[in-house]
């Protein structure tokens, strides 16, 4: 019998700072505030923390966070690469460490001042050396350009339209309009606004792009038996996976036989293989939405519909509350905050606690995903 992660650990605390285009405090201070808020939510003391996980792009390292918050001896620490592809893997690494006895109280976090900081693509010198020589000289400069290339091909092959991408943007905005913490809380979106907005990289317009946000989030992972003693309702890590497909090239995935089947397909196969339920049993989904086309691609990858059907899946309010698959119920990266997808994890926890501002009645299962289009990760959470 192979050891399994299934339900052996749980998220027992979540915390976050305010989200805004610009916050005055440093990324380090914001990180500490989010971590302490998550520990307070769990009813655990900082001195009990013995594991940390974050992203390789995180600027504040474990040493700084641990000593600032007053952590005890730390016996596990891990960083995950590929930007927003690492979000769910931070929880997965902590879950694996705790399930195998390497640590007992884990904290995952992400703090980022993407709103007030520089845009990474503006840096002309520290390029990703291998793929950049094949793309950047031609003016394929930004992540939005790289994803727009796949989006145009997806539209060509499957008849997806801008209205399908609008369905995604609208669902996220509608949920943000219910969430006072969301950057776009008081800013409704209409189809006319979407269709007349400026292009960023045709076929993608302004509203196909996520926000640029300052903010930080954290969550706390412990063993299931310990979770029952914590202050908040435990949310169990039912299944977890990372995904780096064969012959994958990152966001410029133009050089494989099938560029439109991305890392979500790989993560999904592993995720469902170890789960007691399938896509048809998911009550609510938090799917990484740096750009709207990632949603139809991910819906296909995670098995909510067939290949090429992700755009059509979004029709008829399927992604809205009361629809087939309520999506990004805090507003997501498109309309709540873009903090490399960590807000999707915390919103998944809220849904399964029954405390979301856009609560899906009786939600007991939630899929959370990290960035599609880059080496990725995903979690199945259950109450």
């Amino acid at each position: 019998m192979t050891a399994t992660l299934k339900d052996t650990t749980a998220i027992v605390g979540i915390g976050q700072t305010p989200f805004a285009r610009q916050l005055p405090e440093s990324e380090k201070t914001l990180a500490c505030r989010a971590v302490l808020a998550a520990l307070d939510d769990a009813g655990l003391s900082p001195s009990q923390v013995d594991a940390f996980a974050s992203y390789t792009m995180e600027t504040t390292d474990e040493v700084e966070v641990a000593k600032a918050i007053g952590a005890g001896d730390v016996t596990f620490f891990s960083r995950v690469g590929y930007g927003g592809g690492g979000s769910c893997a931070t929880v997965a690494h902590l879950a694996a460490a705790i399930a195998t006895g390497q640590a007992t109280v884990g904290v995952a976090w992400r703090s980022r001042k993407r709103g007030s900081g520089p845009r990474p693509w503006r840096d002309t010198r520290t390029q990703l050396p291998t793929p950049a020589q094949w793309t950047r000289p031609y003016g394929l400069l930004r992540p939005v350009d790289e994803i727009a290339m796949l989006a145009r091909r997806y539209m060509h092959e499957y008849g997806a339209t801008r209205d399908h991408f609008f369905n995604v943007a609208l669902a996220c905005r509608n949920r943000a309009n219910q969430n006072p913490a969301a950057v776009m809380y008081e800013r409704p979106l209409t189809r006319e606004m979407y269709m007349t907005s400026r292009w960023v990289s045709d076929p993608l317009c302004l509203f196909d792009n996520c926000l640029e946000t300052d903010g930080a989030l954290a969550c706390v992972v412990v063993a299931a038996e310990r979770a029952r003693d914590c202050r908040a309702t435990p949310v169990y890590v039912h299944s977890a996976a990372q995904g780096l497909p064969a012959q994958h090239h990152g966001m410029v995935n133009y050089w494989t036989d099938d560029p439109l089947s991305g890392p979500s397909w790989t993560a999904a196969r592993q995720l469902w293989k170890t789960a007691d339920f399938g896509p048809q049993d998911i009550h609510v989904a938090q799917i990484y939405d740096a750009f709207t086309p990632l949603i139809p691609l991910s819906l296909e990858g995670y098995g909510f519909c067939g290949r090429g059907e992700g755009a059509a899946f979004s029709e008829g309010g399927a992604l809205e509350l009361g629809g087939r698959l309520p999506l990004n119920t805090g507003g997501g990266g498109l309309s709540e905050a873009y903090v490399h997808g960590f807000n999707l994890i915390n919103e998944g926890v809220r849904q399964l606690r029954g405390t979301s501002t856009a609560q899906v009645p009786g939600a007991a299962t939630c899929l959370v995903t990290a960035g599609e289009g880059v080496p990725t990760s995903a979690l199945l959470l259950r109450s």
Partner: protein
Amino acid sequence: MSSIMQGTTDNGLLLPVQDEDGRPFWEFAARGELRVQACADCHRLRFPPRPCCPRCQSFVGEWHRVSGRGRIWSYVLPHPPLLPAYADQAPYNVVVVELADAPGIRLVGNLVAAPDAALDSVDPSRLRVGAPVRVAFAELAPGVTVPRWLLERP
């Protein structure tokens, strides 16, 4: 410091930051040849270049000359905010071209009206997925040449 050492042309376009695996591609391009890395043992083509063959694991490579004909697989039209040299030409096109004699090998590039023409020299209404194109070469800076793409039926 010269613009080439900074990795840009005199007018600020980015030059390819070559690595050891990619350098032959650029050396052939400077001679006006479009070549793709291939395994010298099992002859499988691969792109981007890498140290060994993902099929047979051979470290012996060769550079296979291709016809330079292909079709537009996809394209985008970037709008600002962009790096200044690109913003000056925006909206311009970036295309992915699937090579006719090496399906599955796709190159990112620009569709232009002439080899040395600007990145916005083709009317965007002429861009179509599937449009046949052929390669041309533009010298961006002394010794640095990149492939560009011309419509077969301009």
